[in-house]
């Protein structure tokens, strides 16, 4: 049977790999292609690359970078960042990427989800939902790399996205991202309960236990790992790594 997936999520900024904390300050992590090669050799099951360059939304996807990455990648790759139109998606799939991740564009025009899903299949479309807690405690969806308030409720938006054809939901807690404090299990649970498509929990993984909890307590179908796979430990040096299969098996069902 299928395993629960643990997916490295890499952030690219102006052609350089970085890691943010709460979507804000960032540290240099390395070269995207070289790091891709390392993950190949570590035999991870799949990867997500999210281009968080400023104005990526205006410039569209970095096709040159995507081609360079596809060259190095012998496992399924999902790309997000500046995917605005069906044509963008088409160009990306033509390069050899398995899935596109759409965020800002989907909020602006939800019809885009169905457009891509109809041609390429739902399994090729991941809708990414970034969630932040406001000053009064309510969690709402943010777009534009966390900068724009949409006022949307994450559960409602996830349901709509799934109905429109999203194959998976990448659910990111902005508040937990880069903090190693564990996933926002309540958020993960509420969204996972509301949709039948797989939910990938993202933001906050700090330990193997956190990974297990996202699945057993949060109901997530997969987890995305950021800081955990690029640093030796919290606060320590950059060191690309991935938990051993045996270690993952111990915490994942």
């Amino acid at each position: 049977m299928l395993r629960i997936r643990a997916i490295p999520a890499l952030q690219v900024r102006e052609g350089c790999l970085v890691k943010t904390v709460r979507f804000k300050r960032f540290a240099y992590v390395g070269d995207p292609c070289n790091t891709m090669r390392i993950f190949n050799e570590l035999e991870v099951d799949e990867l997500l690359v999210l281009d968080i360059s400023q104005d990526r939304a205006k410039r569209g996807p970095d096709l040159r970078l995507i081609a360079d990455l596809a060259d190095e990648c012998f496992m399924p790759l999902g790309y997000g960042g500046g995917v605005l139109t069906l044509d963008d998606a088409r160009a990306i799939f033509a390069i050899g990427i398995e899935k596109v991740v759409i965020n800002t564009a989907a909020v602006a025009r939800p019809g885009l989800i169905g457009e891509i899903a109809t041609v390429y299949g739902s399994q090729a479309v991941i809708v990414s939902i970034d969630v932040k807690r406001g000053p009064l405690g309510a969690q709402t969806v943010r777009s534009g790399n966390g900068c724009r308030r949409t006022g949307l409720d994450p559960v409602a938006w996830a349901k709509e996205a799934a109905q429109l054809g999203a194959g998976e939901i990448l659910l990111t807690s902005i508040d937990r991202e880069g903090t190693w404090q564990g996933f926002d299990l309540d958020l993960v649970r509420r969204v996972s309960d509301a949709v039948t498509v797989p939910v990938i929990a993202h933001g906050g993984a700090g330990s193997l236990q956190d990974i297990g909890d996202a699945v057993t307590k949060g109901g997530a179908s997969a987890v995305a790992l950021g800081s955990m796979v690029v640093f030796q430990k919290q606060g320590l040096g950059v060191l690309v790594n991935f938990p051993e299969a045996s270690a993952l098996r111990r915490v994942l069902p």
Partner: protein
Amino acid sequence: MITIVDYGMGNLGSVVNMFRRVEAECEVTCEPARIASASRILLPGVGAFDAAMKRIDAAGIRQVLDDKALHQRVPVLGICLGMQLLTRGSEEGQRPGLGWIPADTRRFTAVRGLKIPHMGWNVAERTRPCPLTERLDGEIRFYYVHSYFVLTDDPRDTVLRTRYGVDFAAAVQRDNIMGAQFHPEKSHRFGMQLLRNFAELPC
């Protein structure tokens, strides 16, 4: 030299890439003349059954493919949709398949919450030894994305078996005709070993 048939469906870049990584020479073509001189053929495919069969006919390569596969009997490997095309036909479409292997392509049924398509890594079990699957050690895994699966008439034609709701043929081999349902080009070292095995088959 592996001749990859480009009939307009399926991302060939990744396949070419992997062959390059295992240092196997390959060419991508749709010309009948080139296919006619092929010593090994790879039939890729992503998309719908009928659309693929239609394109193959439209490209005018059906005859040379039949000749290579059934008369000259060069090693042929169909991957993903390409493997399904080897069968008699698919529940997905109306057109007959190439019929190079006695088998049918069926649709997964969404019983008990089984999500379709079958997407993700899954374990394959070796049902009998085969040169295509040599040197795959330990737990054998591949990456799958498909909504239809193949069942061979003769169980001996199935060389790797995977379970997703039902047991289905993950890889097949009957004489020179071979197929892989998964994406070898996305299955890192497992896919590499399989493609390397194919590239090293005597021909």
